[in-house]
């Protein structure tokens, strides 16, 4: 990771957050799960850019959520179609956008155990735009076939499904996901990385155009917002992240 930036420079986390801000686009409500500081930074930035739209719900935060009906409200809200964008990750993600948050190897006697599926086995089906986010881009994390399906990338006709994945962001690139062909395509490669490198470190096949663009840098306006009000808001939920990326300490955040 690069260190504290002059105005034209930006950190990797800021670029990834900016990519997510663009993917969020126009939405009414963006929800962010636990332990997701970069998606949280992106959601708060989108809200700041949109003068309060979208509504943002950060799980695990008392301040940055409007939920008053306990843990069920997020899922009820999603079930009603009131959450437009959510973020999921996976210890493994495969080429059909199946995600594995459970284990590697035999389920009953795994070699590696991850935390668990969280809400993915439900939210992946009912949130229209799910953004997959996995900073580690390697053949260990992006695999041909996941060992355990916490939630499938697509479902056959007849299965109730109003949502699913639209994209996968890693520390090297942005993939778009096409539900009809059940395949990822390489949308852009981050500055400092190459298509060859992406191919080398990806365990699944994916589509790509002859010319793949470079991921555009964050605008000065976006960086200004992220490093200012967003960083201070983020400190409430992710103090370690806000301190290490944006240099926000307890005194500045109040």
């Amino acid at each position, binding site marked *: 990771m690069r260190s504290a930036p002059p105005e034209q420079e930006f950190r990797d986390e800021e670029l990834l957050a900016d990519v997510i801000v663009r993917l969020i686009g126009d939405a009414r409500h963006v929800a962010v799960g636990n332990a997701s500081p970069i998606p949280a930074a992106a959601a708060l930035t989108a809200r700041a850019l949109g003068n309060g739209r979208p509504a943002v719900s950060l799980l695990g*935060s008392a301040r940055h959520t409007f939920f008053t009906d*306990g843990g069920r409200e997020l899922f009820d809200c999603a*079930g009603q179609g009131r959450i437009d964008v959510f973020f999921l990750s996976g210890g493994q993600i495969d080429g059909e956008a199946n995600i594995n948050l459970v284990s590697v190897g035999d389920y009953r006697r*795994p070699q590696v155990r991850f935390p*668990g*599926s969280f809400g993915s086995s439900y939210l992946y089906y009912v949130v229209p735009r799910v953004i997959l986010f996995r900073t580690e881009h390697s053949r260990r994390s992006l695999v041909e076939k996941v060992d355990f399906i*916490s939630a499938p990338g697509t479902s056959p006709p007849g*299965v109730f499904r109003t949502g699913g994945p639209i994209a996968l962001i890693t520390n090297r690139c942005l993939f778009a996901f096409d539900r009809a062909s059940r395949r990822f395509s390489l949308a852009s490669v981050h500055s400092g990385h190459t298509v060859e490198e992406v191919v080398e470190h990806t365990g699944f096949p994916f589509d790509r155009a002859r010319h793949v663009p470079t991921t555009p840098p964050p605008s000065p306006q976006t960086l200004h917002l992220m490093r200012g009000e967003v960083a201070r808001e983020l400190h409430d939920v992710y*103090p370690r992240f806000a301190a290490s990326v944006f240099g926000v300490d307890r005194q500045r955040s109040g």
Partner: protein
Amino acid sequence: MPAAVRTIEEAIAPIIDGCVLLIPRESSGVAMQATRVLIRRGVKQLHLVTCPTSTLQADLLIGGGCVETIETSAVSLGEFGAAPRFAAAVTSAAVRVVDATCPALHAALEAAEHGVPFMPLRGLIGSDVLAHRDDWRLIDNPFAAGDAIVLVPALKADVALFHAPMADRDGNVWIGTNRELATMAHAAERTVVTVEKLSEGNLLDDELLAAGTLAGFYVEAVAVAPRGAWPLGLAGHYPADAAHLAEYASLAATADGFAHYLERHVHAQRAA
């Protein structure tokens, strides 16, 4: 049954070996001091159910050898990484995991609180979470043809245990917007609560407080435990002790380190 204000040791007496113990997610109020007392007491073979996830509490109970089965949608240390004792226990088959997903646990507890046998839930179809749940069913929606939907059975717990900001002497507990704590209490045979402080008067007499209050009718016992969620935080009261949690994550990475942590922070500490 009127709730009684007791010591922590007395309050947790209903949590016996082999019982189904229901605990909340970190942000809703975790009874960590009571958990340490429970580990010192040497409770065994718990069927631990998390509503719907857990962090340090489940990791500590598993590492402490108290858990036979854990029914959960995730156990991690949040910003402090993986839950090391949970992961070690699962990979060595020392604990049985019943994998769920968050809304399935909420739905199963809601079925219990409603007194109905099951609840339907969207999603899940085609997942390995469903494939490994022999106790869940896939049925056709009886109201619409060609619409498959999953049913999860009601989940009744023997004891629910959590920590809250305050209670009164009638056992009414203020839970604020953490409404799943009420669902947990409704779904459990008995509910044990530790609180930061006792409130004078009756919480139900104040309309504003009453809206965020779990009635003492549902509460078996209340024990006062100032900073009882430590080293986790209690929303609106105190933040998590980040330095301590980082130390835990680092020590618990190995069995020896965890044993050292237990000795120092659980066994060597007597209840306040």
